C-alpha cells in the first residue's frame, strides 16, 4: 500500500461508528469471559452440574451468534 493510499484511507475512517462497534464487541467478550469463569467454578464445586451449566452454554452461544456472527442479518439487515 502506498503512502498516498494510506492517507486517503485514514481520511475516510468512520471513527464514530468504529468506536461504537468496538465497545459493543468488547462488552460482549467481557460478558462471555465472566460467564466462562462462573461456569468453571460451578463445575468444580458442584457434583453433576449438567443442568446448572446449560444456561451458561446457551447464553454464551447466543452472544457469539448475535454479536460476532450477526445471525440476525439473515432475516433483517444490520450490514
Amino acid at each position, binding site marked *: *500500500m502506498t503512502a498516498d*493510499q*494510506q492517507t486517503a*484511507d485514514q481520511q*475516510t*475512517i*468512520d*471513527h464514530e*461508528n*468504529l468506536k461504537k*462497534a*468496538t465497545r459493543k*464487541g*468488547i462488552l*460482549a*467478550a467481557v460478558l*462471555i*469471559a465472566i460467564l*466462562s*469463569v462462573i*461456569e*468453571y467454578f460451578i*463445575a*468444580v464445586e458442584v457434583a*453433576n*452440574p*449438567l443442568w446448572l*451449566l446449560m444456561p*451458561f*452454554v446457551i447464553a*454464551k*452461544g447466543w452472544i*457469539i*451468534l448475535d*454479536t*460476532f*456472527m*450477526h445471525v440476525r*442479518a*439473515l432475516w433483517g439487515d444490520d*450490514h
Partner: protein
Amino acid sequence: MTTLDAPPEELDTPPEEAVTESHGEYHMDMSFQPKANRIGLWLFIVSETFLFGAFLSARWFSTGTLKPEELNQALALVLTIVLLVSSVSAYLAETSIKYNHRRNFVLFTVFTIVMGLVFLGGVTIEIKEAIHAYPPETPYGSSYFMLIGLHAFHVVTGLVALTMVLVLGLKGHYGSKEYWGVEGVVKYWHFVDLAWVIIYPTLYLF
C-alpha cells in the same frame, strides 16, 4: 418482471433490472451477491454443526456424564479465554475494515492469528497429558481425541484462511464497500469459537 414471469417470446432478452449495457457489452447486476454469499456460508456452518453434533452425541452415548479425574480443567479454561480473545480480535479486524481503518485491520488480524497459534500450543500440551491419562482406546478417550482433533483441524484451517486474508489485505484488497472475504473468514473463526463453547463443557465440565 422476472424471467419466470416473462412470456416465452421475451425469454431470450435478459431482464432489464439484472443486466445493463455498457460499451456494447452486457453486465450482470451482482448486487444480490453478498446476500447469496452470506446464505451460502450459513448453510456451510449448519452442515458443520451437524458434524460436530455427531461427535458430541457420541461422547454422551459412550460415557454419559462420566469423566476422568485427571482432566486439566484449568488449562481448558485458559484455552477458552485465549480463543475468546482471538474471537473478539477477529471481530475488531472485521469492524476495522468495515469502517475503513486499514492499520487496525492488519494489527487485529495478526493478533487473531497469534492467539490461534497459542490455542493450538495449549491443545498440544493438553493432548500430551491426555494420551497417557485417558488413551484413545478408552470410551472417553475416543470421544475426547475425536472432538479435540476435529476442532484443532478447524482452528488450523481458520488460521490458513486468516493468513490469506491478511496477505490480501496487505496488498490493498478490501475496504469499507468490499470486505466479504474478511467477513466470511471471521464468521468461520467465530464458528470455531462457538464450537469450543460447547465442546469445552461437554468434555471438561459436565
